């Protein structure tokens, strides 16, 4: 019990509580502003943590991370501008809900599922870290390859009405993702000798362009002004809706945990996989994409499930899974601590104090998120003629701010036009995004696998994890074919 009191003595300090609250608050606000990402906020906060106690420092950074993960969904739902890449999936159902006057419902669904996913993710971190870390280490390039193959099958379920159009969008996304230097040889692809294109297209301008700009163009080109009901007076989340979404939230959280524990895949993929699984299993699958609460909940569960789990490889192996955890690793090292097995041997009390703080951060997220909803949902009441110019200003700022590059503003406009064309031709933008994200991962891991095996293709089938994802991929494809067949046999009557 001596350890227990030591843990409490490290954890129970006013500084820690302030750090968590401030971190989550900063995260939510920054996450909600397009172009200001949680990554930037964590990097900016890092130098100020140098003089703090180690636990306080890490909790501040973790708080920003978690707040940012949720904050991104607020603007995605309200103005179709995802504050962070991971919340792009949330807008698929969140924005239609807001347009129907249910912004509050969507925001609450996002918040509650984020918090549930956060708790599940934290519990996984605390109790199963060692086990999940072992899986992560067995995840080599061939296993990644199959995971990406499986992830690509979700294009089928997010394509909207036409799979062909979905595949066209995904193909275009893959082509755009090829712009830049080749990952193995460094040769130029589609860069036209422009140095701005050599580091690939940046994500944020693409995201803002694809989703936010078309809305603005639509508003000024269409003659009918859509009538939007007041969001604040709109109905809140009902118990029935919560119950209906619970299964998807738990499934999404678990997907988030697995994806989060594996370095390098990321919250965006987790959100889309969770969404697509929810859609496939839901009795309301036809309502997905048109404003389904369960869709919002599933997407947010997926991306927040990642947040706690990315700390698994960081704490147990010392491997950062993404940029934010890389900065957090930096914070550990600045304080003379080395994440990994040694940390658990030498600083166990500190690790458990950290866990206490991380658990608390989920509760803080609920409180801060609820307050944020109250104020942010007012945005939905602003007349579009006033709101959209402001949104456009944020879009331009956001596209610029990520790399401090004016070229990115031009890129955003180009993708805005593309998004507008997609809207008018009935092509869904989400498969484009999936192609853009997963295309390079698919290629990288295919080539890496063949490089490590020196060209021997048998390495693709080297172990149970590979077989597991092969099975999932095949099952997912068969399921899609069967559904297609069924829909052909029974002519649509509804």
């Amino acid at each position, binding site marked *: 019990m001596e350890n227990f009191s030591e843990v409490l003595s490290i954890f129970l300090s006013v500084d820690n509580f302030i750090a968590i609250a401030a971190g989550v608050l900063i995260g939510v606000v920054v996450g909600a502003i397009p172009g200001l990402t949680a990554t930037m906020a964590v990097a900016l906060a890092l130098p100020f943590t140098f003089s703090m106690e180690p636990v306080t420092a890490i909790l501040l950074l973790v708080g920003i991370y978690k707040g940012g993960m949720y904050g991104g969904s607020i603007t995605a739902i309200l103005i179709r501008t995802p504050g962070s890449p991971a919340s792009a999936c949330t807008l698929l159902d969140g924005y239609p809900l807001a347009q129907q006057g249910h912004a509050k419902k969507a925001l609450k669904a996002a918040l509650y599922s984020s918090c549930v996913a956060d708790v599940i993710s934290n519990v996984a971190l605390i109790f199963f870290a060692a086990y999940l870390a072992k899986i992560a280490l067995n995840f080599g390039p061939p296993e990644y390859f199959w995971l990406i193959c499986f992830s690509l099958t979700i294009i089928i379920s997010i394509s909207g009405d036409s799979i062909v159009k979905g595949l066209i969008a995904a193909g275009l996304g893959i082509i755009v993702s090829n712009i830049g230097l080749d990952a193995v040889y460094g040769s130029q692809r589609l860069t036209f000798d422009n140095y701005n294109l050599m580091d690939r297209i940046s994500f944020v301008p693409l995201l803002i362009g694809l989703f936010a700009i078309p809305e603005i163009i639509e508003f000024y080109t269409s003659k009918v002004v859509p009538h939007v009901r007041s969001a604040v007076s709109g109905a809140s989340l009902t118990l029935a809706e919560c119950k209906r979404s619970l299964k998807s939230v738990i499934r999404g959280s678990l997907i988030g945990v697995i994806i989060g524990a594996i370095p390098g895949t990321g919250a965006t993929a987790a959100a889309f996989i969770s969404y697509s699984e929810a859609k496939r299993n839901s009795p309301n699958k036809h309502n997905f994409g048109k404003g389904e609460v369960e869709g919002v909940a599933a997407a947010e569960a997926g991306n927040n499930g990642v947040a706690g789990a990315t700390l698994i490889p960081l704490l147990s192996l010392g491997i950062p899974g993404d940029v934010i955890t890389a900065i957090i690793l930096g914070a550990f090292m600045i304080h003379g601590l*080395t994440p990994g097995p040694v940390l658990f041997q030498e600083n166990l009390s500190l690790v458990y104090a950290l866990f206490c703080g991380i658990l608390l951060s989920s509760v803080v997220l609920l409180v801060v998120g609820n307050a944020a909803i109250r104020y942010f949902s007012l945005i939905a009441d602003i007349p579009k003629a006033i709101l959209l110019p402001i949104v456009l200003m944020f879009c331009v700022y956001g596209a610029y701010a990520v790399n401090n590059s004016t070229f990115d503003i031009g890129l955003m406009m180009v993708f805005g036009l593309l998004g507008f064309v997609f809207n008018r031709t009935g092509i869904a933008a989400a498969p484009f995004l999936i192609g853009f994200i997963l295309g390079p991962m698919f290629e990288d891991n295919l080539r890496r696998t063949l490089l490590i095996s020196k060209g021997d293709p048998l390495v693709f089938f080297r172990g149970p994890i590979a077989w597991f994802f092969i099975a999932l991929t095949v099952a997912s494809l068969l399921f899609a074919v069967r559904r297609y067949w069924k829909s052909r046999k029974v002519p649509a009557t509804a």
Partner: protein
Amino acid sequence: MNRLIVKLTSVMTLAAAVTFPIPSVAASEWPADTVKLIVPYSPGGTTDIVSRKVADLLKEELGNVVVENRPGAGSTVATGQLARGGRDADHTILMASPGHAIGAAIYPGLRYDPVEDFRFIRNVISIPNVMVVPASSAYNSLAEFVEAARNGEVTFSSPGVGSSVHMSGELFKTMTGANMIHVPFRGSGEALPALLAGDVDVAFENMPTVLPHIKSGKLKALAVTTTKRSPFLPDVPTVAEAGSDFGLAGYKTSAWFGLITHKSMPDDAVLKLRTSVADVMAGESFKSFLPQLGAEPGEEDGEVFRTFVAEEVVKWDGVAQQANVKK
């Protein structure tokens, strides 16, 4: 608690300062304005962490110093902008790293000369790379490794084409004539698990990335890439030392981080910067920061630093051509 509030306020002030630089009153002595430290990479990387610490310490000497991240095309976008000069050029400094020299070797059509277009203040921090193999590896020494790699084929990982980790491996390959296949990842976070799991045979990773894993016994350090042994791994020989029989006698690479400015920077400003950086480097705060990164203070100052960078440019250009990394 108050301390924390002060710190949080300063986070926000810094954020505001980055967005809206406040013009300060003109003074006779340089700097007359806020000094901008450009980081040519995204937030969160080693260059970023190092730069923010240095900027923080430089504030005592130079007044307000703000950090601005301007990533793109290796580090060549930000470096090109610095070379072009412009309005704030006399108050802008940039944290150059091996990417400054490697970028010049592998990115085509650069509109600047990596040596002639800049003034060189000082190399601030030097971090060795370490040649590491997984704990399960059959190789226990550099000699065993080279023998095997000459007779067969081995793979080496890196966080990306053109990184100092990649180029250190390519340099090793050209000097020894070993059959080494490069397996690029995206960032050390992805590259490290593949190394720990034994999916790749060797890597020439940055010291801070692999040091914890060497200490916990998951990786074996065969050699360090600098000319002197590292105080953090005193028992590990240098590549040049262990590989003198294999043509590695002149082998030398490191991740270095040094400050450069536009070539028009006036002499008094350069002098002020050099003395300020020297003061910072003599301080306790800087010295206690170094071990956390497995780093050592940079030695090259002024013209010596310029010569050092010029040599780096020539070296990496040669390696890039031999390794067929495209220009």
